[in-house]
């Protein structure tokens, strides 16, 4: 009984001493700050990856592939809607990939590779992402500045969400999960979205009000009822999920600025 505290205390003393060392406490402080900023669902796993990356960085400074995967990991920490956390993660990723000596900026090859990985991690197939990537990726030899880097990363993240939403939309339009949706309904739904996106450029507030009036439930119901009169609800040509997704993607990609 008297021995147990003795045998335990040296170990716990050395643990406590270890943590109290200034370098260790600085490391822990950095790790906790990152944890608080990103608030992942698996905090312990996050901390494990964080320390793994730190040790990899210590061993081997600039292995390119590793830096791309580290940058991707940082970008995965916050959803693009958490704007400030996302922005600071983009900054960290940019600095990981930037080539210091050659004038600051990410080399085109790394940038394009990162965009491709972002799209595939977001669940986008190669064929869906290809038209978008054609617009925003850079040539291998080009140097990408921060503004463009951030814009490209945000566009890919938002596009992944957009495609997921379009899949939900298709599911809502299809009358049953195993049956394809009516073509006329799909086209009506896509054209209401196109109308809202095409709202003329006035002041922001007026444009948002007008666009949201065009896609209100009443307007959508009216559009659907117009193309699908009660008599012919069951039959008619159908549109499959991939075609719908491609049409929706085209609406988004048409509004992405091509990089020059």
């Amino acid at each position, binding site marked *: 009984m008297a021995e147990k505290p003795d045998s335990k205390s040296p170990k716990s003393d050395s643990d406590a001493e270890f943590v109290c060392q200034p370098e260790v406490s600085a490391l822990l402080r950095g790790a906790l700050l990152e944890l608080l900023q990103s608030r992942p669902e698996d905090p312990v796993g996050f901390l494990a990856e964080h320390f793994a990356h730190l040790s990899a960085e210590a061993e081997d400074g600039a292995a390119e592939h590793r830096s791309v995967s580290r940058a991707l990991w940082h970008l995965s920490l916050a959803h*693009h809607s958490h704007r400030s956390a996302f922005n600071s993660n983009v900054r960290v990723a940019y600095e990981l990939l930037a080539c210091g000596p050659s004038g600051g900026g990410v080399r*085109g090859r790394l940038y394009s590779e990162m965009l491709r990985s972002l799209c595939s991690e977001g669940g986008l197939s190669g064929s869906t992402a290809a038209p978008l990537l054609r617009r925003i990726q*850079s*040539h291998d030899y*080009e*140097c*990408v*500045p921060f*503004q*463009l880097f*951030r*814009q490209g990363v*945000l*566009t890919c993240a*938002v596009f992944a*969400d*957009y495609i997921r*939403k*379009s899949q*939900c*939309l298709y599911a*809502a*339009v*299809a*009358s049953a999960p195993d049956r394809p949706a009516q073509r006329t*309904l799909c086209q009506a*739904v896509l054209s*209401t*979205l196109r109308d*809202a*996106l095409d709202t003329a450029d006035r002041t922001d507030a*007026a444009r*948002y009000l*007008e*666009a*949201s*009036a*065009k*896609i*209100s*439930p*009443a*307007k*959508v*119901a*009216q559009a*659907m*009822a117009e193309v*699908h009169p*009660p008599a012919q*609800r*069951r039959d008619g040509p159908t549109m499959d999920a991939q075609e719908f997704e491609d049409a*929706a993607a085209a*609406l*988004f990609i048409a*509004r*992405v*600025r091509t*990089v*020059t």
Partner: protein
Amino acid sequence: MSAKAVSCTIKSAVALQIGDAVSDSSRPGVYITDITLAEPVNIQEISFKNYYSAYLTVRLQRREDSSAKWVTCLRNYCLMSNPHAEAGSHDYFSIHRHQMLTEPDNVTTVRLILRQPSSEWLNFSIEEISIYPCAKEDLERDVPAWLSTLTPVEEPLDLNGLPDPETVSSSIQQMWALTEIMQASQTAASIGRFDVEGSYDVKLLSYT
């Protein structure tokens, strides 16, 4: 009141004095200011800022069937309740159409007669004179087309067999919002693909 003031020319005030203006040192108690209007106006109201004037008389010259007639529309309107005291000396006033004795229609000239019987004040006048015309009857505001179609009056639609509009609308709204986010984040930054030391190189353009 959203109407804009009519443009007018305000002449400098003329003092009414007894005796020789040069040799007589007494201060005048009456100033007269004329305001000419570019074209005949139906006056809605006259607004101004007072500066130590006690009483105001307003006369209008109206154009009536090719003859010009002077009428008094305001007689000895009190601006300062006690001419010797400060009250009302710096106030803003607005004379509305229905306060006037006659209808101020087709007015070409406005004459303001200012009186200040007190010897307290060295000078008196009125400033920032604005004349507002009657608002047109058919003043239309641009009502956007989509605003008028917000509440449909027709009979309720038969939605049997159609997808749920709430779910569909919600998904469309989110897709619209995501596209707006993307568009809002677009910058004008460029890689400078076609730049050669700051300018375009035609040969590079032909390669792409």
